[in-house]
């Protein structure tokens, strides 16, 4: 599998932050990468944290990440090695948190209904395209200011670099 090929975990609509990262840990688990990764999707799919591999992606339905503003719902996935979440749509704060923590969040409703768990897709950032089974699916490119933050791997590294 090439670095650009990503194995898919598939979930449904309205996956909220409480099942991505349980609220009961929000003040006790904040920054420890391994600990964060261990609780990823704990209340939704206990198989995920045990079996996710670096470079995997999640493909999900509408309104991924609705609910709390807790950033661990993004960082737990990033630390689990997830490359991107691709969804029909994202909850607003989740989408911001993803960009600001360097996790790719790609709104692309067209691909969601055609792919299955375990399939492999490719992400072409330059052309804002997803490729699956030889078919191409476009997604909206990010505004330049926002892309800069994502490329820096998040707003903290972005400000660190900018300050120098």
């Amino acid at each position: 599998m090439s670095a650009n090929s990503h194995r898919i975990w598939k979930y449904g609509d309205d996956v909220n932050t409480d099942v991505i990262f349980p609220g009961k840990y929000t003040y006790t688990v904040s920054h420890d990468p391994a600990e964060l990764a261990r609780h990823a999707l704990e209340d939704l799919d206990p198989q995920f944290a045990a079996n996710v591999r670096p470079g995997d992606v999640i493909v999900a339905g509408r309104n991924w990440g609705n609910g709390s503003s807790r950033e661990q719902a993004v960082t737990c996935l990033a630390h689990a090695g997830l490359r991107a979440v691709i969804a029909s749509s994202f909850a607003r704060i989740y989408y911001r948190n993803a960009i600001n923590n360097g996790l790719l969040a790609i709104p692309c409703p067209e691909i969601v209904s055609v792919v299955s768990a375990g399939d492999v897709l490719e992400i072409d950032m330059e052309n804002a395209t997803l490729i699956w089974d030889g078919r191409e699916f476009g997604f909206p490119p990010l505004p330049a200011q926002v892309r800069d933050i994502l490329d820096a791997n998040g707003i903290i590294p972005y400000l660190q670099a900018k300050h120098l």
Partner: protein
Amino acid sequence: MGSVLAISQDRLKSTGTETKRDTAYGSFAMAMTATEKLLARASGSSAAKPGEVLVIEPDVILSHDNTAAIAQLFEQLPHRRVKYPERLAITLDHAVPPPNPGHARNHQAVRRFVREHGIGNFYEVGRGICHQVLCEEGLVGPGLTLLGADSHSTHFGWLGAFSAGIGRSEVAALWATGELWLRVPETIRIRLSGELKTGVTSKDLTIHLIGQLSSEGASYKAVEFDGGGLNSLTPDSRAVLTNMMAEMGAKNAWIAPDGVTWAWLENIMRRTRAHDCRERLAYFRDNALYPDTDADYAEDHHIRLGCIEPVISCPQSVDNVLPLSEVGEIPVDLGFIGTCTNGRLEDIAAAAEVLRGRKIRARLLVIPASSMVLRDASAAGYIAALIDAGATVGTPGCGPCMGVHMGVLAPGEVCVSSANRNFRGRMGEPEARIYLANPAVVAASCVAGHIIHPADLL
């Protein structure tokens, strides 16, 4: 950005000390919604179009128990100092009093940060929930902008402010630089007319709306309420609307300041900041912004308040809405009245009215949204009525709302709650079930032992 930015910085400083602004902001470049105007001004510009990315300087930056975690991110930044310490507002509210040493250490770290950076707007354990406290303290008001590390930061729109929730890294960045990128949202207008029937509250209206438009019905969008129907909505019940628009995915929600708003602000600030109440009020009056009559809205909805029936959100999403009359006989283990959504005086009064002279069968936990609410509820005799009926009254704060402590559920238990979220695991236990309703319904359900409207109690 020149002169406008300079003015806007003066304006921003006033979170701590008053700055009189004598330059008129009347000259916007185009017809705009209130949200567009508020964002344009906060970015030092005379116009803002939906879809545009602006860099804004908010007046207030909110955080709570998560302040210590944000401070850890902040410490990774080279800036070292908080750019505008007077704009920060910090409450301890999520796990109060601390239920275990981990939370106690977290609070300790927050207090250390507050001391080190000279944060004046700091509210200790027991003062109440961030959204309620910042309103009571007159830190937010008409025309101001707030960004908060909490998803219910949409709350402050009931005072005519722009307010939105953001993540922890962004708050760290804001502390360092004072500014942040925001996409100008499209605005949905919801016109309200008429009056709610007896036994129907703004919680029913809000749940009804979320059921109609869905949990992503306002995703990335602003929601502005207007129309004569607002006249009949009290301050406490307006806050329910804007608070819970977070559950519709909204970036912010907004209600035009009117006589009701000004009277509330004046009364409350006389109590919390008597020394500068007049100046603060004048400052809010100067800054208040209103939409243009020819502004562009992405959607227009009209709601006749008289048609709203009591409703309930069923597990496990807020937009899973049923008329209360169709929910069937659902046994209840715990009732919970509290939270930033429905933990105010009006809510506790409604519960006390139902409970006076009755005994509860199911447990009932009541947690006032602030120390002021607790004090007023106690002075009015509501707390006595609750306790006589068998309820438990807790320390002002979030209580079990997010499943951390103080009333979390056991597997298989059913809670009917006045809160805002009923997601799986929200109150700590994935196998518990949460129904959302207005506070009088919660109280009545505890009396009956199953979900019921107070009008149907024997």
